[in-house]
Protein backbone atom coordinates (compact mmCIF):
# COMPACT_ATOMS: atom_id res chain seq x y z
CA UNK A 1 0.00 0.00 0.00
CA UNK A 2 1.39 3.33 -0.97
CA UNK A 3 -0.90 5.66 0.96
CA UNK A 4 -2.34 5.42 4.44
CA UNK A 5 -6.11 5.81 4.55
CA UNK A 6 -7.66 7.26 7.71
CA UNK A 7 -9.72 4.69 9.59
CA UNK A 8 -11.79 7.19 11.58
CA UNK A 9 -14.57 9.03 9.84
CA UNK A 10 -14.60 11.86 12.41
CA UNK A 11 -11.73 14.30 12.15
CA UNK A 12 -9.45 14.48 15.16
CA UNK A 13 -10.50 18.04 16.07
CA UNK A 14 -14.11 16.94 16.51
CA UNK A 15 -13.04 14.11 18.79
CA UNK A 16 -11.17 16.52 21.07
CA UNK A 17 -14.16 18.81 21.74
CA UNK A 18 -15.67 18.23 25.16
CA UNK A 19 -19.16 16.80 25.16
CA UNK A 20 -21.57 17.36 28.09
CA UNK A 21 -20.79 13.80 29.21
CA UNK A 22 -17.12 14.64 29.33
CA UNK A 23 -17.80 17.69 31.46
CA UNK A 24 -19.88 15.60 33.85
CA UNK A 25 -17.05 13.10 34.09
CA UNK A 26 -14.61 15.88 34.94
CA UNK A 27 -16.89 17.10 37.74
CA UNK A 28 -17.29 13.62 39.19
CA UNK A 29 -13.55 13.18 38.96
CA UNK A 30 -12.88 16.37 40.87
CA UNK A 31 -15.37 15.68 43.65
CA UNK A 32 -14.18 12.09 44.10
CA UNK A 33 -10.64 13.33 44.38
CA UNK A 34 -11.77 15.80 47.05
CA UNK A 35 -13.54 13.05 49.01
CA UNK A 36 -10.47 10.84 48.92
CA UNK A 37 -8.34 13.69 50.17
CA UNK A 38 -10.77 14.35 53.03
CA UNK A 39 -10.66 10.67 53.99
CA UNK A 40 -6.88 10.73 53.93
CA UNK A 41 -6.83 13.76 56.23
CA UNK A 42 -9.31 12.04 58.54
CA UNK A 43 -6.79 9.22 58.87
CA UNK A 44 -3.99 11.55 59.90
CA UNK A 45 -6.02 13.74 62.28
CA UNK A 46 -6.34 11.16 65.10
CA UNK A 47 -2.60 10.63 65.20
CA UNK A 48 -1.97 14.36 65.23
CA UNK A 49 -4.64 14.86 67.87
CA UNK A 50 -3.32 12.11 70.13
CA UNK A 51 0.23 13.38 69.86
CA UNK A 52 -0.83 16.95 70.55
CA UNK A 53 -3.18 16.09 73.41
CA UNK A 54 -0.82 13.71 75.19
CA UNK A 55 2.05 16.15 74.77
CA UNK A 56 0.05 19.04 76.21
CA UNK A 57 -1.30 17.04 79.14
CA UNK A 58 1.85 15.03 79.81
CA UNK A 59 4.58 17.63 79.39
CA UNK A 60 4.18 18.85 82.97
CA UNK A 61 4.21 15.29 84.35
CA UNK A 62 7.24 14.08 82.45
CA UNK A 63 10.07 15.16 84.71
CA UNK A 64 13.12 13.77 86.42
CA UNK A 65 11.10 12.57 89.41
CA UNK A 66 8.87 10.51 87.16
CA UNK A 67 11.86 8.88 85.50
CA UNK A 68 13.91 8.20 88.60
CA UNK A 69 11.68 7.86 91.66
CA UNK A 70 9.76 4.81 92.75
CA UNK A 71 6.03 5.26 93.47
CA UNK A 72 5.14 6.11 97.03
CA UNK A 73 3.38 3.21 98.64
CA UNK A 74 0.75 5.53 100.07
CA UNK A 75 -0.43 8.91 98.96
CA UNK A 76 1.15 11.05 96.28
CA UNK A 77 4.66 11.90 95.16
CA UNK A 78 7.31 9.58 93.77
CA UNK A 79 7.57 8.54 90.14
CA UNK A 80 7.29 5.75 87.60
CA UNK A 81 10.68 4.09 88.04
CA UNK A 82 8.98 0.80 88.90
CA UNK A 83 7.07 0.86 85.63
CA UNK A 84 10.00 1.94 83.48
CA UNK A 85 12.29 -0.72 84.95
CA UNK A 86 9.52 -3.30 84.66
CA UNK A 87 8.94 -2.62 80.98
CA UNK A 88 12.67 -2.61 80.39
CA UNK A 89 12.92 -6.10 81.89
CA UNK A 90 9.82 -7.83 80.63
CA UNK A 91 10.11 -6.66 77.03
CA UNK A 92 13.71 -7.80 76.49
CA UNK A 93 12.85 -11.21 77.92
CA UNK A 94 9.78 -11.40 75.69
CA UNK A 95 11.89 -10.36 72.69
CA UNK A 96 14.58 -12.92 73.43
CA UNK A 97 11.92 -15.61 73.45
CA UNK A 98 9.81 -14.35 70.56
CA UNK A 99 12.53 -13.54 68.02
CA UNK A 100 13.98 -17.06 67.63
CA UNK A 101 10.54 -18.64 67.60
CA UNK A 102 9.10 -16.16 65.11
CA UNK A 103 12.13 -16.14 62.84
CA UNK A 104 12.55 -19.91 62.86
CA UNK A 105 8.86 -20.42 62.19
CA UNK A 106 9.16 -18.09 59.21
CA UNK A 107 12.25 -19.94 58.01
CA UNK A 108 10.42 -23.23 58.31
CA UNK A 109 7.37 -22.00 56.43
CA UNK A 110 9.37 -20.31 53.71
CA UNK A 111 12.29 -22.66 53.20
CA UNK A 112 11.33 -26.13 54.28
CA UNK A 113 7.62 -26.82 54.57
CA UNK A 114 5.24 -27.99 51.89
CA UNK A 115 2.68 -25.65 50.46
CA UNK A 116 -0.23 -26.95 52.51
CA UNK A 117 1.38 -26.84 55.93
CA UNK A 118 2.76 -23.40 55.04
CA UNK A 119 -0.74 -22.15 54.32
CA UNK A 120 -2.01 -23.64 57.58
CA UNK A 121 0.77 -22.10 59.67
CA UNK A 122 0.39 -18.73 57.97
CA UNK A 123 -3.33 -18.80 58.67
CA UNK A 124 -2.72 -19.65 62.32
CA UNK A 125 -0.27 -16.76 62.64
CA UNK A 126 -2.71 -14.36 61.02
CA UNK A 127 -5.44 -15.39 63.44
CA UNK A 128 -3.03 -14.99 66.34
CA UNK A 129 -2.14 -11.47 65.16
CA UNK A 130 -5.81 -10.56 65.22
CA UNK A 131 -6.72 -12.26 68.50
CA UNK A 132 -7.75 -9.85 71.29
CA UNK A 133 -4.79 -9.51 73.60
CA UNK A 134 -6.95 -10.00 76.69
CA UNK A 135 -7.54 -13.58 75.55
CA UNK A 136 -3.81 -14.13 75.45
CA UNK A 137 -3.69 -12.69 78.98
CA UNK A 138 -6.30 -15.13 80.27
CA UNK A 139 -4.61 -18.02 78.51
CA UNK A 140 -1.24 -17.29 80.09
CA UNK A 141 -2.93 -16.57 83.42
CA UNK A 142 -4.36 -20.08 83.36
CA UNK A 143 -1.05 -21.77 82.72
CA UNK A 144 1.58 -19.57 84.34
CA UNK A 145 -0.22 -17.76 87.16
CA UNK A 146 -2.88 -20.08 88.57
CA UNK A 147 -0.58 -23.07 89.15
CA UNK A 148 1.79 -20.88 91.20
CA UNK A 149 -0.95 -18.91 92.91
CA UNK A 150 1.17 -15.85 92.26
CA UNK A 151 1.06 -13.09 89.69
CA UNK A 152 4.52 -12.96 88.19
CA UNK A 153 6.65 -11.05 85.69
CA UNK A 154 7.66 -14.20 83.85
CA UNK A 155 4.04 -14.81 82.89
CA UNK A 156 3.87 -11.19 81.76
CA UNK A 157 6.89 -11.67 79.53
CA UNK A 158 5.44 -14.83 78.05
CA UNK A 159 2.14 -13.13 77.32
CA UNK A 160 4.00 -10.34 75.52
CA UNK A 161 6.11 -12.92 73.65
CA UNK A 162 2.97 -14.69 72.55
CA UNK A 163 1.73 -11.44 71.06
CA UNK A 164 5.07 -10.73 69.40
CA UNK A 165 5.66 -14.13 67.80
CA UNK A 166 3.03 -13.94 65.04
CA UNK A 167 3.99 -10.36 64.17
CA UNK A 168 7.65 -11.28 63.87
CA UNK A 169 6.87 -14.46 62.01
CA UNK A 170 4.68 -12.80 59.41
CA UNK A 171 6.99 -9.85 58.74
CA UNK A 172 10.03 -12.15 58.58
CA UNK A 173 8.21 -14.41 56.21
CA UNK A 174 7.27 -11.55 53.91
CA UNK A 175 10.91 -10.49 53.88
CA UNK A 176 12.23 -14.00 53.24
CA UNK A 177 9.88 -14.32 50.32
CA UNK A 178 11.50 -11.24 48.80
CA UNK A 179 14.98 -12.77 48.97
CA UNK A 180 15.61 -13.91 45.39
CA UNK A 181 15.82 -17.67 44.97
CA UNK A 182 18.86 -17.09 42.77
CA UNK A 183 20.82 -16.25 45.92
CA UNK A 184 19.82 -19.53 47.55
CA UNK A 185 20.84 -21.35 44.39
CA UNK A 186 24.13 -19.49 44.18
CA UNK A 187 24.95 -20.53 47.73
CA UNK A 188 23.82 -24.14 47.38
CA UNK A 189 25.74 -24.43 44.11
CA UNK A 190 28.90 -23.58 46.05
CA UNK A 191 28.34 -26.63 48.19
CA UNK A 192 27.09 -24.65 51.16
CA UNK A 193 24.69 -26.77 53.25
CA UNK A 194 21.07 -25.71 53.38
CA UNK A 195 21.09 -24.62 57.04
CA UNK A 196 24.13 -22.45 56.44
CA UNK A 197 22.60 -21.00 53.30
CA UNK A 198 19.51 -20.02 55.26
CA UNK A 199 21.56 -18.53 58.06
CA UNK A 200 24.30 -16.69 56.18
CA UNK A 201 22.63 -15.83 52.90
CA UNK A 202 18.85 -15.80 53.25
CA UNK A 203 18.51 -14.39 56.77
CA UNK A 204 21.52 -12.15 56.27
CA UNK A 205 20.03 -10.66 53.12
CA UNK A 206 16.70 -10.08 54.86
CA UNK A 207 18.24 -8.87 58.11
CA UNK A 208 17.19 -5.23 57.89
CA UNK A 209 13.64 -6.20 57.09
CA UNK A 210 13.54 -8.73 59.91
CA UNK A 211 14.86 -6.15 62.37
CA UNK A 212 12.09 -3.82 61.25
CA UNK A 213 9.52 -6.48 62.09
CA UNK A 214 11.13 -7.09 65.47
CA UNK A 215 11.15 -3.40 66.33
CA UNK A 216 7.50 -2.99 65.40
CA UNK A 217 6.67 -5.97 67.58
CA UNK A 218 8.65 -4.41 70.44
CA UNK A 219 6.77 -1.17 69.99
CA UNK A 220 3.52 -3.06 70.20
CA UNK A 221 4.62 -4.91 73.32
CA UNK A 222 5.47 -1.64 75.05
CA UNK A 223 1.85 -0.55 74.87
CA UNK A 224 0.09 -3.83 75.64
CA UNK A 225 -1.95 -3.54 78.84
CA UNK A 226 -4.59 -6.25 79.02
CA UNK A 227 -2.31 -9.29 78.97
CA UNK A 228 -0.18 -7.78 81.74
CA UNK A 229 -3.15 -7.13 84.04
CA UNK A 230 -3.66 -10.89 84.31
CA UNK A 231 -0.05 -11.82 84.61
CA UNK A 232 2.53 -9.31 85.84
CA UNK A 233 -0.32 -7.49 87.57
CA UNK A 234 1.62 -4.31 88.25
CA UNK A 235 3.26 -3.24 91.45
CA UNK A 236 4.14 -0.14 93.34
CA UNK A 237 7.44 -1.68 94.31
CA UNK A 238 10.54 -1.53 92.19
CA UNK A 239 11.21 -5.10 91.13
CA UNK A 240 14.59 -5.73 89.57
CA UNK A 241 15.27 -9.29 88.46
CA UNK A 242 12.62 -11.22 90.39
CA UNK A 243 10.49 -12.64 87.63
CA UNK A 244 8.57 -14.80 90.09
CA UNK A 245 6.99 -11.70 91.62
CA UNK A 246 4.59 -9.10 90.25
CA UNK A 247 6.18 -6.35 88.23
CA UNK A 248 5.06 -2.95 87.06
CA UNK A 249 4.95 -1.79 83.45
CA UNK A 250 4.30 1.56 81.80
CA UNK A 251 0.79 0.82 80.50
CA UNK A 252 -0.26 -0.65 83.85
CA UNK A 253 1.13 2.39 85.64
CA UNK A 254 -0.92 4.62 83.37
CA UNK A 255 -4.03 2.53 83.86
CA UNK A 256 -3.75 2.46 87.65
CA UNK A 257 -2.77 6.08 88.22
CA UNK A 258 -5.28 7.53 85.79
CA UNK A 259 -8.03 5.98 87.94
CA UNK A 260 -6.82 7.47 91.22
CA UNK A 261 -8.72 10.35 92.82
CA UNK A 262 -5.50 12.35 93.27
CA UNK A 263 -4.66 14.95 90.58
CA UNK A 264 -0.94 14.46 91.27
CA UNK A 265 -1.20 10.76 90.34
CA UNK A 266 -3.28 11.62 87.28
CA UNK A 267 -0.50 13.95 86.32
CA UNK A 268 2.00 11.10 86.63
CA UNK A 269 -0.21 8.94 84.40
CA UNK A 270 -0.12 11.64 81.73
CA UNK A 271 3.62 11.92 82.03
CA UNK A 272 4.01 8.16 81.66
CA UNK A 273 1.65 8.24 78.69
CA UNK A 274 3.84 10.85 77.02
CA UNK A 275 6.91 8.70 77.75
CA UNK A 276 5.21 5.67 76.19
CA UNK A 277 4.19 7.73 73.18
CA UNK A 278 7.75 8.93 72.73
CA UNK A 279 9.13 5.39 72.92
CA UNK A 280 6.64 4.01 70.41
CA UNK A 281 7.00 6.93 68.02
CA UNK A 282 10.77 6.79 68.27
CA UNK A 283 10.82 3.11 67.35
CA UNK A 284 8.49 3.71 64.43
CA UNK A 285 10.44 6.70 63.18
CA UNK A 286 13.70 4.79 63.51
CA UNK A 287 12.26 1.96 61.44
CA UNK A 288 10.95 4.32 58.73
CA UNK A 289 14.14 6.34 58.66
CA UNK A 290 16.12 3.20 58.04
CA UNK A 291 13.94 2.09 55.17
CA UNK A 292 13.93 5.62 53.73
CA UNK A 293 17.69 5.69 53.97
CA UNK A 294 17.89 2.39 52.16
CA UNK A 295 15.60 3.57 49.39
CA UNK A 296 17.62 6.74 48.93
CA UNK A 297 20.88 4.80 48.71
Amino acid at each position, binding site marked *: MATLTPVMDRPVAARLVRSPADRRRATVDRSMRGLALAAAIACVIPLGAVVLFVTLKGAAGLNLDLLTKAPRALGTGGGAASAILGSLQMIPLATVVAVPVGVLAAVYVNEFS*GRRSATAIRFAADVLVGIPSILVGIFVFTFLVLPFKQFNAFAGSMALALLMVPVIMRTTEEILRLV*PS*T*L*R*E*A*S*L*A*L*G*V*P*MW*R*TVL*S*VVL*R*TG*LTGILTGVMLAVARAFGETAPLLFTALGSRLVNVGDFAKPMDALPIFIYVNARQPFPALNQQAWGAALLLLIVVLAINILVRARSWGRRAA
Partner: protein
Amino acid sequence: MTLQIDAPPPPEAAPPEAVPPEAPESGASESGPALVTTYLRGPDVQLAPAARGERREVDAAVVVSGLNVYYGSFRAIRDIGLSIRRHAVTAIIGPSGCGKSTFLRTLNRMHELTPTARVEGSVLLDGIDIMAPDVDPVQLRRVVGMVFQRPNPFPTMSIHDNVAAGLRLTGRVAKAELDAVVERSLRRAALWDEVKDKLRANGTSLSGGQQQRLCIARALAVDPEVILMDEPASALDPVATLRIEQLMAELRASYTIVIVTHNMQQAARVSDETAFFTMGEDRAGYLVEQGPTSQIFTNPKHQLTEDYVSGRFG
Protein backbone atom coordinates in the same frame (compact mmCIF):
# COMPACT_ATOMS: atom_id res chain seq x y z
CA MET B 1 37.96 -45.03 32.78
CA THR B 2 40.75 -42.66 31.97
CA LEU B 3 42.86 -42.63 28.92
CA GLN B 4 46.48 -41.66 29.04
CA ILE B 5 47.69 -39.93 25.95
CA ASP B 6 50.40 -37.49 25.24
CA ALA B 7 49.43 -33.97 25.96
CA PRO B 8 48.04 -31.85 23.20
CA PRO B 9 49.62 -28.44 22.94
CA PRO B 10 48.39 -26.13 25.69
CA PRO B 11 45.61 -23.80 24.55
CA GLU B 12 47.76 -20.71 24.22
CA ALA B 13 50.14 -22.55 21.92
CA ALA B 14 47.57 -23.67 19.39
CA PRO B 15 44.13 -22.73 18.06
CA PRO B 16 41.23 -24.54 19.73
CA GLU B 17 40.78 -26.87 16.78
CA ALA B 18 44.16 -28.35 17.48
CA VAL B 19 43.37 -29.24 21.07
CA PRO B 20 41.13 -32.25 20.52
CA PRO B 21 43.37 -34.99 19.28
CA GLU B 22 42.26 -36.84 16.18
CA ALA B 23 41.17 -39.79 18.21
CA PRO B 24 37.83 -38.58 19.55
CA GLU B 25 37.01 -36.89 16.28
CA SER B 26 37.45 -40.00 14.21
CA GLY B 27 35.42 -41.94 16.73
CA ALA B 28 32.69 -39.34 16.82
CA SER B 29 32.26 -39.25 13.10
CA GLU B 30 31.13 -42.88 13.07
CA SER B 31 28.04 -42.72 15.29
CA GLY B 32 26.77 -41.13 18.47
CA PRO B 33 27.41 -43.91 20.99
CA ALA B 34 30.88 -44.54 19.51
CA LEU B 35 31.90 -41.23 20.96
CA VAL B 36 31.36 -42.54 24.46
CA THR B 37 33.26 -45.72 23.83
CA THR B 38 36.10 -43.80 22.28
CA TYR B 39 36.49 -41.80 25.41
CA LEU B 40 36.05 -44.74 27.69
CA ARG B 41 38.15 -47.36 25.95
CA GLY B 42 41.46 -45.79 25.24
CA PRO B 43 44.08 -48.31 24.25
CA ASP B 44 43.11 -48.70 20.60
CA VAL B 45 42.94 -44.96 20.06
CA GLN B 46 45.55 -43.19 18.02
CA LEU B 47 47.76 -41.06 20.20
CA ALA B 48 48.32 -37.47 19.30
CA PRO B 49 51.95 -36.50 18.88
CA ALA B 50 53.49 -35.06 21.99
CA ALA B 51 53.74 -31.30 21.95
CA ARG B 52 56.03 -30.78 24.87
CA GLY B 53 56.72 -34.24 26.00
CA GLU B 54 54.44 -33.91 29.04
CA ARG B 55 51.61 -36.34 29.65
CA ARG B 56 48.07 -35.32 30.39
CA GLU B 57 44.81 -37.10 30.93
CA VAL B 58 42.28 -36.66 28.18
CA ASP B 59 39.06 -38.42 28.89
CA ALA B 60 35.43 -38.02 29.74
CA ALA B 61 35.00 -36.30 33.06
CA VAL B 62 31.28 -36.94 33.03
CA VAL B 63 29.41 -39.74 31.30
CA VAL B 64 25.65 -39.47 31.18
CA SER B 65 23.55 -42.40 30.12
CA GLY B 66 19.84 -43.10 29.91
CA LEU B 67 19.01 -39.81 31.57
CA ASN B 68 15.33 -39.00 31.92
CA VAL B 69 14.12 -36.02 33.92
CA TYR B 70 10.51 -35.56 34.91
CA TYR B 71 8.67 -32.61 36.40
CA GLY B 72 5.74 -34.41 37.99
CA SER B 73 4.34 -36.48 35.15
CA PHE B 74 5.88 -34.28 32.43
CA ARG B 75 9.04 -35.69 30.92
CA ALA B 76 11.39 -32.79 30.20
CA ILE B 77 14.34 -34.90 29.06
CA ARG B 78 14.28 -38.24 27.30
CA ASP B 79 17.04 -40.80 27.30
CA ILE B 80 20.03 -38.56 27.02
CA GLY B 81 23.41 -40.19 26.74
CA LEU B 82 26.48 -38.08 26.25
CA SER B 83 29.94 -37.62 27.57
CA ILE B 84 31.67 -34.46 28.61
CA ARG B 85 35.34 -34.17 27.91
CA ARG B 86 37.70 -33.29 30.70
CA HIS B 87 39.46 -29.95 30.45
CA ALA B 88 37.47 -28.85 27.46
CA VAL B 89 34.46 -26.64 26.84
CA THR B 90 31.31 -28.50 25.92
CA ALA B 91 28.52 -26.34 24.52
CA ILE B 92 24.91 -27.39 24.77
CA ILE B 93 22.69 -25.79 22.17
CA GLY B 94 19.08 -26.24 21.22
CA PRO B 95 15.73 -24.48 20.99
CA SER B 96 14.12 -22.88 24.02
CA GLY B 97 12.41 -25.34 26.31
CA CYS B 98 14.26 -28.41 25.08
CA GLY B 99 15.68 -29.06 28.53
CA LYS B 100 19.18 -27.60 28.38
CA SER B 101 18.92 -25.96 31.80
CA THR B 102 17.20 -29.02 33.17
CA PHE B 103 20.04 -31.19 31.92
CA LEU B 104 22.68 -28.88 33.33
CA ARG B 105 21.04 -28.76 36.73
CA THR B 106 20.99 -32.54 37.02
CA LEU B 107 24.77 -32.58 36.67
CA ASN B 108 25.17 -31.15 40.18
CA ARG B 109 21.78 -32.26 41.45
CA MET B 110 20.43 -28.74 41.63
CA HIS B 111 17.23 -30.25 40.23
CA GLU B 112 16.56 -31.49 43.75
CA LEU B 113 15.58 -27.95 44.70
CA THR B 114 12.51 -28.43 42.50
CA PRO B 115 10.23 -30.64 44.58
CA THR B 116 8.49 -32.17 41.57
CA ALA B 117 11.68 -33.02 39.67
CA ARG B 118 12.67 -36.68 39.36
CA VAL B 119 15.64 -38.23 37.60
CA GLU B 120 16.23 -41.64 36.02
CA GLY B 121 19.48 -42.86 34.57
CA SER B 122 23.05 -42.43 35.57
CA VAL B 123 25.53 -39.59 35.62
CA LEU B 124 29.04 -40.86 36.17
CA LEU B 125 31.56 -38.37 37.45
CA ASP B 126 34.95 -40.03 37.26
CA GLY B 127 33.14 -43.33 37.31
CA ILE B 128 31.02 -42.54 40.35
CA ASP B 129 27.28 -42.33 39.93
CA ILE B 130 26.40 -38.97 41.42
CA MET B 131 22.71 -39.91 41.59
CA ALA B 132 23.53 -42.68 44.07
CA PRO B 133 21.89 -42.13 47.44
CA ASP B 134 25.19 -42.19 49.29
CA VAL B 135 26.54 -39.25 47.29
CA ASP B 136 25.98 -36.06 49.25
CA PRO B 137 24.69 -33.31 46.96
CA VAL B 138 26.39 -30.70 49.14
CA GLN B 139 29.76 -32.34 48.55
CA LEU B 140 28.97 -32.91 44.88
CA ARG B 141 28.37 -29.21 44.34
CA ARG B 142 31.82 -28.39 45.64
CA VAL B 143 33.17 -30.51 42.80
CA VAL B 144 30.64 -29.47 40.17
CA GLY B 145 30.17 -25.72 40.40
CA MET B 146 27.66 -23.52 38.64
CA VAL B 147 27.43 -20.05 37.12
CA PHE B 148 24.00 -18.67 36.42
CA GLN B 149 22.39 -16.69 33.65
CA ARG B 150 22.07 -13.50 35.65
CA PRO B 151 24.99 -12.44 37.82
CA ASN B 152 23.93 -13.14 41.39
CA PRO B 153 26.57 -11.91 43.84
CA PHE B 154 25.48 -11.97 47.47
CA PRO B 155 24.21 -8.41 48.00
CA THR B 156 25.20 -8.24 51.66
CA MET B 157 28.79 -9.22 51.05
CA SER B 158 31.86 -7.38 49.83
CA ILE B 159 33.75 -8.46 46.73
CA HIS B 160 36.23 -10.27 48.96
CA ASP B 161 33.53 -11.99 50.96
CA ASN B 162 31.65 -13.03 47.85
CA VAL B 163 34.67 -14.89 46.56
CA ALA B 164 35.40 -16.30 50.00
CA ALA B 165 31.78 -17.29 50.62
CA GLY B 166 32.04 -20.87 49.42
CA LEU B 167 35.00 -21.57 51.67
CA ARG B 168 33.90 -19.48 54.61
CA LEU B 169 30.38 -20.85 54.76
CA THR B 170 31.62 -24.40 54.54
CA GLY B 171 34.29 -23.70 57.12
CA ARG B 172 37.04 -25.36 55.17
CA VAL B 173 39.80 -22.80 55.18
CA ALA B 174 41.72 -20.95 57.85
CA LYS B 175 41.11 -17.23 57.79
CA ALA B 176 44.72 -16.51 56.89
CA GLU B 177 44.54 -18.62 53.77
CA LEU B 178 41.34 -16.98 52.58
CA ASP B 179 43.04 -13.86 51.25
CA ALA B 180 45.35 -15.93 49.08
CA VAL B 181 42.48 -17.99 47.72
CA VAL B 182 40.48 -14.84 47.02
CA GLU B 183 43.32 -13.26 45.11
CA ARG B 184 44.05 -16.41 43.14
CA SER B 185 40.40 -16.88 42.21
CA LEU B 186 39.98 -13.26 41.18
CA ARG B 187 43.10 -13.48 39.05
CA ARG B 188 41.86 -16.63 37.38
CA ALA B 189 38.55 -14.94 36.70
CA ALA B 190 40.47 -12.02 35.13
CA LEU B 191 38.95 -9.59 37.59
CA TRP B 192 41.81 -8.97 40.01
CA ASP B 193 43.23 -5.85 38.38
CA GLU B 194 39.83 -4.19 38.27
CA VAL B 195 38.89 -4.83 41.90
CA LYS B 196 42.14 -5.20 43.85
CA ASP B 197 41.79 -1.71 45.31
CA LYS B 198 38.19 -2.12 46.39
CA LEU B 199 37.90 -5.62 47.75
CA ARG B 200 35.80 -4.26 50.62
CA ALA B 201 33.29 -2.64 48.27
CA ASN B 202 29.94 -4.28 47.84
CA GLY B 203 29.76 -7.01 45.21
CA THR B 204 26.71 -5.44 43.64
CA SER B 205 28.57 -2.18 43.03
CA LEU B 206 30.32 -3.77 40.04
CA SER B 207 29.10 -3.66 36.45
CA GLY B 208 27.09 -6.58 35.13
CA GLY B 209 30.04 -8.10 33.34
CA GLN B 210 32.28 -7.68 36.36
CA GLN B 211 29.60 -9.20 38.57
CA GLN B 212 29.47 -12.24 36.32
CA ARG B 213 33.24 -12.63 36.53
CA LEU B 214 32.91 -12.22 40.28
CA CYS B 215 30.45 -15.10 40.25
CA ILE B 216 32.92 -17.14 38.24
CA ALA B 217 35.66 -16.30 40.73
CA ARG B 218 33.30 -17.32 43.52
CA ALA B 219 32.73 -20.66 41.82
CA LEU B 220 36.47 -21.15 41.23
CA ALA B 221 37.34 -20.45 44.86
CA VAL B 222 35.93 -23.76 46.06
CA ASP B 223 38.21 -25.52 43.57
CA PRO B 224 35.71 -27.41 41.44
CA GLU B 225 36.53 -29.91 38.72
CA VAL B 226 33.54 -29.14 36.54
CA ILE B 227 31.91 -25.75 35.99
CA LEU B 228 28.39 -25.54 34.63
CA MET B 229 27.38 -22.28 32.99
CA ASP B 230 23.78 -21.62 32.00
CA GLU B 231 23.81 -18.85 29.41
CA PRO B 232 26.45 -16.98 31.42
CA ALA B 233 26.71 -14.08 28.99
CA SER B 234 23.16 -13.67 27.81
CA ALA B 235 22.51 -10.78 30.19
CA LEU B 236 25.71 -8.98 29.21
CA ASP B 237 26.73 -6.55 26.50
CA PRO B 238 29.06 -7.68 23.66
CA VAL B 239 32.24 -6.40 25.31
CA ALA B 240 31.52 -8.11 28.62
CA THR B 241 30.51 -11.20 26.69
CA LEU B 242 33.86 -11.24 24.96
CA ARG B 243 35.63 -11.06 28.31
CA ILE B 244 33.67 -14.06 29.57
CA GLU B 245 34.50 -15.96 26.40
CA GLN B 246 38.19 -15.20 26.72
CA LEU B 247 37.98 -16.32 30.30
CA MET B 248 36.49 -19.65 29.31
CA ALA B 249 39.30 -20.20 26.84
CA GLU B 250 41.76 -19.72 29.68
CA LEU B 251 39.86 -21.78 32.23
CA ARG B 252 39.48 -24.85 30.10
CA ALA B 253 43.13 -25.72 30.66
CA SER B 254 42.28 -26.51 34.27
CA TYR B 255 38.54 -27.12 34.39
CA THR B 256 35.90 -29.09 32.60
CA ILE B 257 33.35 -26.58 31.40
CA VAL B 258 29.79 -27.11 30.21
CA ILE B 259 28.05 -24.09 28.80
CA VAL B 260 24.48 -23.64 27.65
CA THR B 261 24.13 -20.94 25.04
CA HIS B 262 21.63 -19.63 22.54
CA ASN B 263 24.35 -17.85 20.67
CA MET B 264 25.64 -20.00 17.81
CA GLN B 265 28.71 -17.85 17.23
CA GLN B 266 29.53 -18.11 20.89
CA ALA B 267 29.24 -21.88 20.85
CA ALA B 268 31.45 -22.00 17.78
CA ARG B 269 34.00 -19.62 19.31
CA VAL B 270 34.39 -21.03 22.79
CA SER B 271 33.63 -24.72 22.69
CA ASP B 272 35.57 -27.81 21.76
CA GLU B 273 32.58 -30.09 21.85
CA THR B 274 28.98 -29.32 21.00
CA ALA B 275 25.85 -31.24 21.90
CA PHE B 276 22.65 -30.36 20.13
CA PHE B 277 19.35 -30.98 21.92
CA THR B 278 15.89 -30.61 20.53
CA MET B 279 12.44 -31.72 21.60
CA GLY B 280 9.95 -34.11 20.18
CA GLU B 281 6.18 -33.93 19.82
CA ASP B 282 5.76 -34.67 23.53
CA ARG B 283 8.00 -31.64 24.33
CA ALA B 284 10.55 -33.97 25.87
CA GLY B 285 14.08 -32.87 25.03
CA TYR B 286 16.57 -35.33 23.61
CA LEU B 287 20.08 -35.34 22.26
CA VAL B 288 20.29 -35.19 18.49
CA GLU B 289 24.03 -35.39 18.22
CA GLN B 290 27.26 -34.59 19.93
CA GLY B 291 30.63 -34.05 18.36
CA PRO B 292 33.58 -31.75 17.98
CA THR B 293 32.33 -28.23 17.54
CA SER B 294 33.93 -27.78 14.14
CA GLN B 295 32.14 -30.83 12.88
CA ILE B 296 28.75 -29.92 14.35
CA PHE B 297 28.91 -26.52 12.73
CA THR B 298 30.36 -27.46 9.36
CA ASN B 299 29.41 -31.04 8.77
CA PRO B 300 26.65 -32.26 11.09
CA LYS B 301 25.30 -35.73 10.59
CA HIS B 302 21.68 -34.85 11.22
CA GLN B 303 19.47 -32.61 9.15
CA LEU B 304 17.93 -31.24 12.37
CA THR B 305 21.32 -30.06 13.55
CA GLU B 306 22.16 -28.50 10.24
CA ASP B 307 18.85 -26.65 10.17
CA TYR B 308 19.40 -25.38 13.68
CA VAL B 309 23.00 -24.22 13.41
CA SER B 310 22.34 -22.58 10.07
CA GLY B 311 19.42 -20.69 11.59
CA ARG B 312 16.59 -22.41 9.77
CA PHE B 313 14.96 -23.49 13.00
CA GLY B 314 14.54 -22.28 16.58
